[in-house]
């Protein structure tokens, strides 16, 4: 099914999504990847707060290219989601509802999606130039010292994704790949 989604994606809305659904996301997401996840983990371990309130938020696993003068944002696309697998439970406990990345994830991520009512979304890895125009605003909101890996608040305008793992723990790849295996 194809549908327009206005962010933030609440748990009630997330529950209606099925693996394989095509979504056009409009609204705010936060980029956050390896280095920023590590810093959040360290902050929480010290009893500090995460620099971002993750309640109902969508995390975009992405490290963009710098924007050319005159452009809002540079080429951007999903990075390998599985590198963030060890942080998924921590982020769900912080209130995150959706993750946007690429590639396969560990089986326990599907269990966590089911447990916390979250979803893992898939973009097209490698198709990053066309995504530049899908970002209407950008603001660095945490860890500016990380450069491309800082946490950025982006406003998406109809960014196309496919639901990879739904809140029942169904995984798109596990459904699709066997159909084409010979």
């Amino acid at each position, binding site marked *: 099914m194809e549908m327009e989604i206005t962010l933030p994606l609440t748990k009630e809305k997330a529950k209606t999504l099925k693996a394989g659904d095509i979504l056009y996301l409009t609204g705010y997401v936060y980029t956050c990847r390896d280095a920023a996840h590590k810093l959040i983990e360290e902050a929480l371990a010290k009893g500090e707060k995460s620099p971002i309130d993750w309640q109902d938020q969508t995390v975009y696993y992405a490290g963009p290219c710098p924007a050319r003068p005159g452009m809002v944002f540079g080429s951007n696309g999903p990075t390998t989601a599985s590198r963030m697998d060890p942080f998924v439970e921590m982020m769900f406990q912080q209130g995150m509802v959706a993750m946007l990345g690429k590639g396969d994830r560990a089986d326990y991520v599907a269990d966590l999606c089911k447990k916390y009512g979250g979803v893992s979304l898939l973009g097209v890895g*490698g*198709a990053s130039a066309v995504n*530049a125009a899908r970002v209407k605003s950008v603001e660095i909101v945490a860890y500016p010292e990380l450069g491309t890996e800082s946490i950025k608040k982006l406003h998406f305008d109809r960014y196309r994704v496919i639901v990879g793992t739904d809140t029942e723990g169904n995984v798109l790849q596990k459904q699709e790949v066997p159909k084409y*295996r010979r």
Partner: protein
Amino acid sequence: MARVLNTEVLVPVLERLVKKACYELNDNVMCALRAAYDVEESPIGKETIKVLIENGEFAKKEQLPCCHDTGAAVVYLEIGQDVAWEGKPLKEQINEGVRQGYDKGYLRKSMVADPLERVNTGDNTPAIVHTEIVPGDKVTVHVMPKGGGSENMGAFKVLLPGDGVQGVKDFVLETVKRVGGNPCPPYIIGVGVGGTMDHCAWMAKKALFRPIGERHAKPLYAEMEEDILKAVNDTGVGPLGMGGRVTALDVHIDYYPVHITALPVAINFACNSARQASETI
């Protein structure tokens, strides 16, 4: 008579090549993606390849990085043995060209200075530099921006000498199944067979420079390439791992003589954004 070149000639060449490689998938890759679109049967896979083709065309037209991961800069120089260098150290000039290309080209800086301390160098240097001395008085510079998604899925294993052709095939297949969609299929698989550990890995990388559709000159390896390509595409992994008929665009194998005890095999993936550019000085 030696041809004298000042190493500074490399700076503008490298600057041009890193930008060109990141902005423009060459015709060989674009044609392979179009052919993949024609044979793909999965609706999700077909749509995914369509997006990749549109992205490749758009990136070239707008001179934007086709993939956000503009990679580690792999630089391979074939230096004619009749060339004599003067000027600043060669590697310094290569890095200066890479630095200028990544800066002026608005490319992502992805290198950290120390793998454990992990502080970004801020200019995507240093490059990964390979040099080979070849006959003649020319210098050919090849650049391959290598993204993490595909590079991280590479694998190396030393098989037993008796494992032979089947052992190599099995190792590639088990790797393909294990890594699934992570190396951003449809990808190219480079395979090195033989040599030592270091040389084997370099052969796997170098095999990725070969154009898609070109077979190894030796029939044994050409046949293995065909067999492995078919087997990889029969896994059903498909574009970006979301299922389909096209997982690999091609498989390129290279070999080197080896010690009597060993059968080393290295696998290196080039993602769908298989970027490379070359220039001869």
